[in-house]
């Protein structure tokens, strides 16, 4: 979604030429070849990823499908003039659920650095089940919580039914031409100059369609209210005369 030179000097045109033009193109072309004339053809990419993961015994298409999905998610997570602390709803959520933006940065850097070998670092929404004691609501609520996580090779949090919001590619090919073996600098550069927080907020909005959004809006339901009598509610009741 931007010119290949638009992210300079933080991510070089050469890196994007190769990363998008060769790696990503390869994954997509190989995937198309793999799913042609199979039951997987015609599915949405996200569904192909989940289906071919096959609960831990991945089918051959999984690697290409997941990598194609991951890279698409990654390229759209970048933007020129991006990075630094976010605004909007994601900023509030980060403060509320991860402590602070600085804390998010710390966790994210740790995940990216400690992913040995090839993989990805994510910010995602995961779901916690908890029993609700509120009689207005069903007994089982899924509350969504922000998490920083890391995955190896092609794996992504979709397989855990998490909703990804942001990702950083930490395969060596993503940073080798620009940073060589200096992964920590690559991660810092990403966080300070390239993160597309606008799309993270957009993803958050879209994610709301899929889940109960945690704390309900108490303005709509006054939990301290007693049940009103008809009189208090202003309803005239005609008593039965008999």
């Amino acid at each position: 979604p931007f010119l290949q030179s638009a992210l300079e000097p933080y991510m070089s045109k050469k890196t994007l030429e190769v990363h998008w033009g060769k790696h990503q193109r390869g994954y997509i072309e190989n995937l198309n070849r793999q799913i042609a004339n199979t039951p997987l053809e015609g599915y949405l990419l996200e569904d192909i990823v989940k289906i071919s993961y096959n609960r831990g015994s991945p089918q051959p298409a999984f690697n290409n499908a997941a990598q194609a999905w991951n890279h698409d998610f990654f390229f759209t997570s970048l933007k020129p003039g991006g990075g630094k602390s976010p605004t909007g709803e994601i900023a509030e959520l980060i403060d509320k659920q991860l402590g602070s933006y600085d804390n998010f940065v710390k966790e994210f850097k740790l995940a990216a650095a400690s992913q040995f070998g090839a993989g990805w670092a994510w910010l995602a929404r995961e779901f916690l089940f908890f029993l609700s004691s509120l009689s207005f609501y069903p007994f089982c609520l899924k509350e969504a919580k922000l998490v920083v996580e890391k995955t190896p090779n092609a794996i992504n949090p979709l397989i855990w039914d998490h909703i990804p919001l942001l990702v950083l590619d930490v395969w060596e090919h993503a940073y080798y031409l620009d940073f060589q073996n200096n992964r920590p600098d690559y991660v810092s550069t990403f966080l300070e100059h390239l993160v597309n927080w606008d799309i993270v907020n957009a993803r958050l909005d879209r994610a709301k369609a899929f889940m109960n959004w945690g704390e309900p809006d108490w303005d709509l339901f006054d939990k301290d209210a007693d049940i009103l009598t008809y009189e208090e509610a202003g309803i005239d009741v005609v008593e039965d005369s008999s």
Partner: protein
Amino acid sequence: MAVAGQQSRASHSFTLPDLDYDYGELEPAISGEIMKLHHTKHHQTYITNFVKALEQLEQAEKDGNAEAIVKLQGAINFNGGGHVNHSIFWKNLAPSKSGGGEPPEGKLASAIKDEFGSLEKLIAKMNADGAALQGSGWVWLGLNKDLKQLAVQTTANQDPLASKGLVPLLGIDVWEHAYYLQAWTDYKNVKPDYLKNIWKVINWSDVSSRYEANL
């Protein structure tokens, strides 16, 4: 954290081994730029982090901190494995003027013929397995000491070949850092081309010595 004046264990003195050749001598199979980075940055980093993890382990043992001891195993395996693997790798390579690329002779040659049919078939298998490996790792020619049999095996990340019950004879690094700087300039198809070309600088006499030493 480490107490000053305390005697360190000998294990803390891992250092970067010197190469038997100059960085540029393996060209054009592997560029001098890659060799220099690979040796002075990647391998050195593994050693640095390995030593650090061992120091932390020593401290955790002193403190009787079981949780920390277990948690450090990942870093020790990864960084220690990286040091072990790369140390073997540098010896497995040699410039052509020092014999790199010359096919094996003697016991190893016959064993290869027995097990795989021919050297070409072994090379084809290692290339295929190396190319098919997803993510980061190594492709090895290893020796099963019990069965006295050669085997081709891949490992992930920096897992040492010993974890598969084999003695490492020849290892080829297929992490992206091993070839990426030649990507799409020298090597149009990157990993497969790198694998095809590395055989020109494989030091078979080193591989032979390891084989014979472990028979």
